[in-house]
């Protein structure tokens, strides 16, 4: 029942978003403002979770939205708006890194593939603690978990944002959640 309600709510959100994107593509100012209201908070959370030390978050966010406003008419499928938006965000943050000659891409480690193991589930009541511990994780773990928690993105969509295979996303999320759980337990003593 709860799952059904969630799916219905999510579908409503998707339908609403799709309509807003179409209106933006028609150049409607009010639609851009609605889109901004919907995505600015979660986008800010995501950008802050990327290893963006030294990058001006406000400037980067403005840069992202400028690109959205300028290029949204080129987006062929409104259903993939979120993936498109987070890819822009990711590229902007990394551009910031490149300009500062810090590093070219996030350091990543190979992880063993996983096959359908039980993933830890997190209670929303622990959100504050989760947020704190999330910042302790490796950047590439933090990124996929953020997309999963905040955007409830599918593995396929996360793979499209991050630019890797679905298998890599699956294993990355699996190990990321394990690390998160261990870290939370460690902090709990």
């Amino acid at each position, binding site marked *: 029942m*709860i799952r059904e*309600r*969630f799916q219905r*709510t999510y579908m409503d959100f998707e339908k609403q978003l799709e*309509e807003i994107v*179409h*209106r933006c*593509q*028609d*150049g*409607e*100012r*009010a639609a*851009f*403002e609605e889109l*901004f*209201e*919907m995505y*600015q*908070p*979660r986008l*800010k*959370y995501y950008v*802050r979770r990327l290893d963006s030390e030294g990058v001006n978050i406000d400037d980067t*966010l*403005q840069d992202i*939205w*400028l690109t959205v*406003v*300028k290029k949204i*008419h080129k987006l062929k499928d409104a259903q993939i708006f979120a993936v498109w938006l987070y890819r822009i965000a990711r590229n902007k943050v990394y551009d910031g890194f490149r300009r500062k000659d810090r590093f070219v891409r996030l350091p990543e480690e190979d992880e063993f593939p996983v096959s359908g193991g039980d993933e830890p589930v*997190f*209670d*929303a*009541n622990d*959100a*504050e603690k*989760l*947020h*704190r511990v*999330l910042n302790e994780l490796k950047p590439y773990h933090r990124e996929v978990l953020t997309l999963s*928690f*905040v955007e*409830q993105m599918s593995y396929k969509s996360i793979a499209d944002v991050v630019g890797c295979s679905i298998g890599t996303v699956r294993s990355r999320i699996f190990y990321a959640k394990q690390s998160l759980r261990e870290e939370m337990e460690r902090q709990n003593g």
Partner: protein
Amino acid sequence: MDNNKKLFEGLLKADGINPAGATEYERIAFGKMLDQQSKSKQSKPGIARPDIWRIIMKSRITKLAAAAVIAVAAILSITFLNKSIPAAYALEQTIQAAHSVRYLHVRNSVESQDEPMEFWVEFGPSGELKNMRFNKPAWMDSEDGETVIVWKDNKMQLWIKKKNFLVTLEDKEVAAQVLKQVEQLDPKFAVQCLQEKQQEGAIELTMEEPVDKDEPIVVTATSLKKDDDSPFQRIVLFVDQATRLVNSVDLYKLENGEYHKVMTSEYFDYNQPIDAAMFTFKDIPDSATRWDQTAQEVGLSQGNFTNEEIAAEVVRQFLQALIDHDYAKAGKLFSGVPAERIEKAYGQIRFIKIISIEKPVSHALTGGLYVPCTVEIEENGKIIQWHPEHSYVRQVHGQPGRWEIIGGFRGI
């Protein structure tokens, strides 16, 4: 509230972010950004428009046709103000020469396409647009194909050969947009518009004036702007030595460190009177569908309805007319589109019932209202709920107190 939503909100709150929306400061900053974008688009409209708007205001037209002239004007304005260029020839002479231009024939050829875009423009004694013809090649619009657009006597006519469709409009907003484009063919106008851009000083300018007076003066302007995302980064202008008028312009795009020619604009027949027949449609076949919005009462009278009420009512009556197969009525509500055209577009679909018509919301681009609605239809044996994406309604220009659908329902 489900766990996922609660988790999302909890995480954002823990980071000091209000999950419900942006901050006031962010809203103001974003609003300013939209204002700036809006200003920059006013001189080169490129937003996709629904249906009949789209036919005329196809973004590629504005990008390619207008960009060429803007580019020329940019050079003219730069040179006009830059007195330090040591050349016998000065482009003020071209501007002066352009003052006397009454007739102009422009051909824009895109490198990747065989068919050019062609414009014939006639200006009045005070420099105002009198007549205009634009031959729009088929490659610019795969749906409509080759289209001829004529502006004359404050009316606009479009001949869409592939659809055997002649449209006559008297739409002030569309006309204003088209006129703005055409005015940009006149360097005098464009110089004024682009002086601001010139002041950025982002272009390197060179000139070659051959001794042989039969050879044109060559002016090359190259953008110095890093990461220039404008349509062209180099423009080469060929000016007739005798008349000081522009003969042609080549436009180059910088790709992978090299300049590639993407378009050539040629200017012919300066001040050669254009045959009046160019601005009329005399050879339209009798079988063509004629849609003359200027010669019939269209839409629905507002009566005592509020704007929102009449917008919803127009959509309701339009959908009901489709359910009733009353295509004449549907056409009248849809900007006066002929009944046969409506039947052709919707006759294959069985409109079953109106599910809902929601509260209309204002729509800045069309200056009207967007009316969200849902209708149950049967198409290809399947019963589905259809949500028209662009069900826009607005007041009929030139017909006070009447409201019409202006586009967005598919198939027209």
